[in-house]
C-alpha cells in the first residue's frame, strides 16, 4: 500500500467522503491502463 495526497475542490466532507475520492483514482487507474496513457 502506498499513500498519496489528493488535492480537491470538493470541500464538503459530508457529501464527498475521503475514501470515495480515493476510489476516483482507482477508476482512473483502470482507464489509464485501458487506453495505455
Amino acid at each position, binding site marked *: *500500500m*502506498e*499513500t*498519496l*495526497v*489528493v*488535492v*480537491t*475542490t*470538493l*470541500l464538503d*466532507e459530508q*457529501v*464527498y467522503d*475521503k*475514501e*470515495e*475520492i*480515493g*476510489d*476516483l*483514482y*482507482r*477508476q*482512473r*487507474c*483502470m*482507464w*489509464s*491502463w*485501458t*487506453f*495505455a*496513457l
Partner: protein
Amino acid sequence: MHCLGVAVLGAPPRTPAASDAWAGFFRRHRCDGLKRGLPCLSGAVCCGLPCPDCSALLSTAREAFMPSYDPVRHRRDCDRALAPSASTPTCPSPISLTGADVARAFAAADVHFWHQPPGRLHPTRGLVGVAVARRSQRESLPGRRLPQRHLVARAVPPARRQQQRHLLPRPRQDACRGVAAPGLPGRSPLEQQVPSSWLWRGRHVHLVDGLVVSMPDPPENQTSLPQPPGQQPGWGFPLLRLVLIVVAGHRLCAGAGLWPLARQRDRRDSAVPHLAGDHAGRDIAVLDRYYARTSWWRSAAVQGGHGSAVHQRRSCDFSRGQRLGRDDHVVVWRRPERPDWMRVEAYEAMPKTLTVREVRVRVPSPVSGWRPWWS
C-alpha cells in the same frame, strides 16, 4: 472523436518482432510484475462509479499496455468496453470506430495517420506507433528514412497553428458534445441521456491524462514545435504534449489537445481546465500530479470547474487548516509571485486565495521503483 485514444494508442498490428521486443523490454526493466501486481478492481472497490464488468475491463487493461495490438482484437475489446453504453436503451449507442474510420475523419482536418513498418517499431515508443503529418509532409515522408525511435510526426500548418488546440474540426466537436439543450447548456445529447446511476455524486467524471512524444526534426517541426530551452542546439528533438480526456460515465473521449512542450506554457495549462471543465460546477476532472500546480487550480477556479489531483509532494501537514477528519483538512492557498512565463493578465485573473481540500488516501502499489499507475 470518440475513438481518438483508440486510433492513436492501439493501432500497430501484432507482430512477433514487436512482441519479442516488448518481452525483452519488460525483462530488462523488471516491470513484468507491474502487470501481475495490478490490483483487482472489483465492483465493490469501484463503488460510486459505473463499473458494470470490471473483470472484462481489467483483462483489457492488462493487455492494452502492449503496443502490438491485433486490429481485430482491438475492435473486439473496444466493443466490450463500450458494451454497457450499447446495451442501455436509454443511452444512445456509441459507435466504435476502427483506426481507418478515425483516419478518414481526421483527413477532413488535414491530419493524416499512417503506420510505421512493424519491423521498425521501437519497443518503448511503439505505444504511439502512428505518424501524423500534414498533407505536404505525408507525400515526402514515406520515402524518407526516419530514425527508428521517432515514430510520431506531426506538423501543424502555420495558418492553423493557433486553431489546433482541438484536433477535430469544430463542426465535429459540436456533433459530439456541443449541442445544447434547455437547462443543460453545452451538454451533448449523449451526456444528457446517460443514466444518473452512471454518474459520481451526480457529476460526470473527466479522466485527464497526457503524454509527451518526440518528433522528427526537419526545419518545419523545429519552427512549429521548438525544443525545450534546456536542450543544447544540435541535441534532442522537438517535443509534443498530447492530452486526452475520457469521460468515465459514457467511456468516450470528450476532448483532446496538442501543444508544443516548450512554448505557450500558460496557454497550455489554461486550456486543460477549459477542456475538462466545460460544464462549470457540474463536472469533476481527475488529474495526475502534473496538474497539482497552483496555477492550474486557479485557472480552474476562475472557470468554475472542480477537480482532484495528486499532490506533488507526498508530505503534507494535516495539523494546519480546518480539520475535517483523519488525514483530511481544508487549507487556503495564497497566490504566489507571478512566474516569468505567465502573462500578466492571466495572473491578475486568478484569485488571490484558493480554498482546497487535501486528503491522504491509501492505494495499492503494484511494484516499487516504478512510476505508480495512478500518478
